[in-house]
């Protein structure tokens, strides 16, 4: 994808600086998403679990794009809050193939959504690792979604319900299935971001 092409996508924004924050549990695939955004696909197979954070920046003609990827281990999640300030888009990455941690994922996301400093910030949920065999199937009807929601939530009703996104009224949000490993679905997520970031803060 490349940071420069990303930057071009966002250049229409009134702001001269854009800050994207990538959060999610450990092993969700945040750094792999960052690598795809930065056109570092060759390096995906060398990725090490993030101990602090990774940041990728690009400057061009007075416009600046910063993407922050913060480590997601339980012990270091309390530090996430230090990165909230000035965030334009929140990307929350979910390991769709780790069913046992959906509750933990949901809890972390709902806490984030109550953060004052992230109020109104558009939320892009990457339902990552769709390439894995045990990934939550996107097209399976929700076992526990209410019937009236199923109409609109054909894909990922489980995730939307679990994370209580359907009741969100204070921000734009989107769940995008993806496989960062294969570079699939990321582009669509970025397109959504480009369309939705401008109306949020300015």
């Amino acid at each position, binding site marked *: 994808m490349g940071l420069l092409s990303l930057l071009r996508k966002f250049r229409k924004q009134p702001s001269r600086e854009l800050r994207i924050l990538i959060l999610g549990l450990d092993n969700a695939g945040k750094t792999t998403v960052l690598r795809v955004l930065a056109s570092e696909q060759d390096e995906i197979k060398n990725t090490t679990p993030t101990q602090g954070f990774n940041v990728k920046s690009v400057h061009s003609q007075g416009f600046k794009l910063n993407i922050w990827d913060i480590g997601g281990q339980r012990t270091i999640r309390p530090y996430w809050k230090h990165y909230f300030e000035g965030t334009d888009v929140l990307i929350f990455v979910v390991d769709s193939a780790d069913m046992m941690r959906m509750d933990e994922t949901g809890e972390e996301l709902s806490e984030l959504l109550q953060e004052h400093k992230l109020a109104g910030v558009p939320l892009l949920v990457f339902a990552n690792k769709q390439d894995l065999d045990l990934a939550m199937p996107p097209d399976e009807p929700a076992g526990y979604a209410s019937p009236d929601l199923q109409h609109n939530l*054909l894909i990922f009703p489980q995730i939307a319900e679990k994370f209580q996104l359907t009741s969100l009224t204070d921000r734009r949000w989107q769940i*995008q299935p993806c496989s960062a490993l294969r570079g699939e679905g990321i582009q669509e997520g970025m397109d*959504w971001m480009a369309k939705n970031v401008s109306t949020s803060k300015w």
Partner: protein
Amino acid sequence: MGCCVSSGEERTDREPLAETRPRYSWEKKERPDRSQLIISGQVGVVVCRLPGQLSGRQFHIQDCRQCEIFVLDTTSSLTIHGCTDCTLVLGPCGGSVFVRQCEGCTVVVACQQFRARDCRKCTVYLHCKSQPVIESSHRLRFSCFQAYYDKLRDQFSSADLHPFNNQWSHIHNFTNQGGESDWSFAQETTPPITPPSEGDISGCGLTFQRGRSTVPYSVGPLARPTESEGCVVVMTGEERESRARELLTKLQDQVVLVQTCHSHFKGNEAQAFFGDHKSLLAQIKTGPCIMMELSGENVQQICHSSLEGVPEDVYHLSSGREEGERERETLANYLMSSLTM
């Protein structure tokens, strides 16, 4: 069918998505038989997956007790959750291995990433391409991956791993309280596991015998013998791996293998790291190489005589105590720096 779940504002002006939406690879593939990919709630049994049965699929092991689990195939992702007193032998995983809430287990595994959380009293014989991490765990013990079966070397390649690219000892502890109560290096150099003698698995050639392992036994830089002579051996050419293995077989027990890597330097990367070591640099510039840090009394002389018969243009060996010292330091720094992101 809609493209994605999203907030409502945009829905009315959205184009009919069925036509514009890309078709993803995961939508085209056939759903696997999930029951083959999950082992759950077993007690006191031997469970096997043989070479070719998984071929890089995801695998999940959960809530087992006193089981012996042999997964002699490649996987793309492995989760081991809530297992107690189990023995797990797991073939190369091209993605991440996540061990959670396990107690009293012995795990032999090779992987791209290794993560452990909320584990107690487990011993891990590890091959890991990146830095292994642990969190909220106690009394874990780590040692170098040691195992062989007939298909294992090929499986390393299928999983995009190399037996010599092993960073098993660089453990990062997210909940470091100081002291050794969280983790330590295991004294054992081979897993105390007896391969099953019955069933199809008995034909796989599985052994934990010392010296047979597909991954050479390295002690890691933290256990590098202090005060002893060091050296770096670089092996290039088509036969680099077999020659490196031959050398290590000859050296066994005379010197200590500290760490190894398999690298293919591109651009000016080699110059940037090894520019100060002319002879070593010249060797690694010839193509993909295996690099080994060795340590021990008279290590250079022992290596030199063990390399007899190997063409001189396919290897480099540190010459002199000072050069050996400098080269091993540079190699150690290079390997540390490869763990950054």
